[in-house]
């Protein structure tokens, strides 16, 4: 199957200091392919560059060397409709669910904000909101609440609902359950598995839990000493 997204020989170097520049190589020569309906697991210790690599793959950060290809084209060269197509197709879910949502907007406004950006006619908003809440297993009673008034697991589902409205093909999941209890973790991960089955989504799952990887990933890579190695 053709990869939707391919990171090709990616390297990232961090530079710091104003007068005396210091360079720290985070990783080099990383190649990774993401396909629809498949989960690639990414593991590594804190500071090994997992989040940086996932942000580069999602197009949120530029690599120091190498390129990220979306349907065979370098994302750095994408413009106009093709760039928007990439931004829609590849979505990221962050570690801290509460931090992913605006604390001053109700859940309903947060969801409607996405529908507005997608230029969905207003008359369809109610139906779309109802459908997406049903997909992520949330009750409509939550719509009038604010992120601070619902649990971490519910916030992560709301963040997922916002992402799913965009109908991505690939999702970059940066430790989506590390801030959650095991019971809520099981809810969110089984929801992700179900979505993959029903919608054929491709995932890049960043996690530090080997047991989670064993349950979720088709293939696992480990970022160690700046290199990406396939896990046995």
């Amino acid at each position: 199957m053709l990869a939707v997204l391919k990171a090709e020989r990616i390297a990232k170097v961090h530079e710091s200091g104003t007068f005396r520049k210091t360079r720290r190589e985070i990783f080099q020569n990383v190649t990774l392919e993401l396909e629809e309906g498949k989960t690639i697991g990414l593991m590594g210790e804190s500071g090994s560059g997992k989040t940086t690599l996932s942000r580069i793959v999602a197009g949120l950060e530029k690599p120091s060397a190498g390129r990220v290809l979306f349907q065979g084209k370098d994302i750095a060269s994408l413009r106009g409709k093709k760039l928007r197509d990439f931004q829609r197709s590849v979505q990221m879910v962050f570690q801290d669910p509460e931090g992913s949502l605006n604390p001053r907007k109700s859940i309903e406004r947060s969801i409607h904000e996405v529908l507005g950006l997608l230029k969905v006619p207003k008359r369809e908003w109610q139906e779309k909101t109802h459908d997406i809440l049903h997909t992520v297993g949330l009750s409509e009673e939550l719509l009038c609440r604010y992120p601070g008034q619902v649990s971490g697991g519910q916030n992560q589902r709301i963040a997922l609902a916002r992402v799913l409205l965009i109908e991505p093909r690939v999702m970059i999941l940066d430790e989506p359950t590390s801030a959650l209890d095991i019971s809520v973790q099981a809810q969110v991960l089984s929801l992700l598995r179900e979505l993959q089955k029903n919608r054929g989504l491709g995932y890049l799952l960043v996690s530090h839990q080997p047991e989670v990887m064993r349950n979720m990933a088709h293939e696992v890579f480990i970022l160690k000493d700046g290199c990406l190695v396939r896990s046995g």
Partner: protein
Amino acid sequence: MIKAKIPAIRKTPVLQVSGLSVQFETPLGRVHAADSVSFELFENETLAMVGETGCGKSVVASAIMQLLPQNAAVNGDIEFEERNLLDLGEKEMAKVRGAEIAIIFQNPSLSLNPVITIGDQIAEMLQVHGKAAGRSKSIEKAAGVLRRLGLGESGLLKMYPFQFSGGMNQRIMIASALMLSPKIIIADEPTKGLDSATAAGTVREMEKMKDLSSASLLLITHDPALVEKIADRVAVMYCGEILEIGPCREVFQKPLHPYTKALLGCLPERGLHPISGASPSMTDPPQGCKFHPRCPKRNAKCSQSPFMKQIETIDSGTASGERWVKCWLY
């Protein structure tokens, strides 16, 4: 095969919590954070209190240390050294905190003062409780405790918490807890927010701490994997109540309460099976068994409150099979 029977042999508890209830008055209503919580902590043992976030585990720890906010209404008994801790005044309680019962909080970086050196912070314990003459002597003792924990690097005592990682700060908190050789150490989510390598390091430190001191450990966590590694007994909490309590290995191998079974089923190594439904409101908890609206084995009796029943497992192959469960199925 399981049958109800009460064994006669009992050890002496160092801490006995009986019928502890904690309620908070809030603008959203009365929050029932802990409801008739009873357990015993024995000498030299590690008792883990496990449950989902918000089930009241940390409230129990704070009630023992009398660190609850003023809007908390606390009832029940917390017997320690033939005293009810809930009857002690602030001055008497200050003598207990740190010296007799120490606590390790869940966010080590926030629990340490960022503008005071590590050495001074650990040594502060001795000075506050009048156990050392002068700053230099107490810092010497602090260095001794750090050496025992394998943190003997020179210069460490003069460094500040912000210069360390979360895992290293957690070790500093463990060292502080050991300074006065307390009888009980309460560890409130010691691995929360740490990555797996750092969490594993913290677990090793905790095991070392258990070897170095004769203190009993009350471990509060939402992570059953951590419990399995270091606890002797486990108490499973849900919605402010203890639903099951028993030897760790037996509870993990053969959980009795449907909630314990469901919670363990959520573990990735046990298949990531989510618990149906959502956690109940703490302001308006369900009548009867609080888990019954989500329980796959509920029956008509579950709308009445069950009571804690002692169960002896006879096919587990261990003699210490003293288990308690709060469910109408037993």
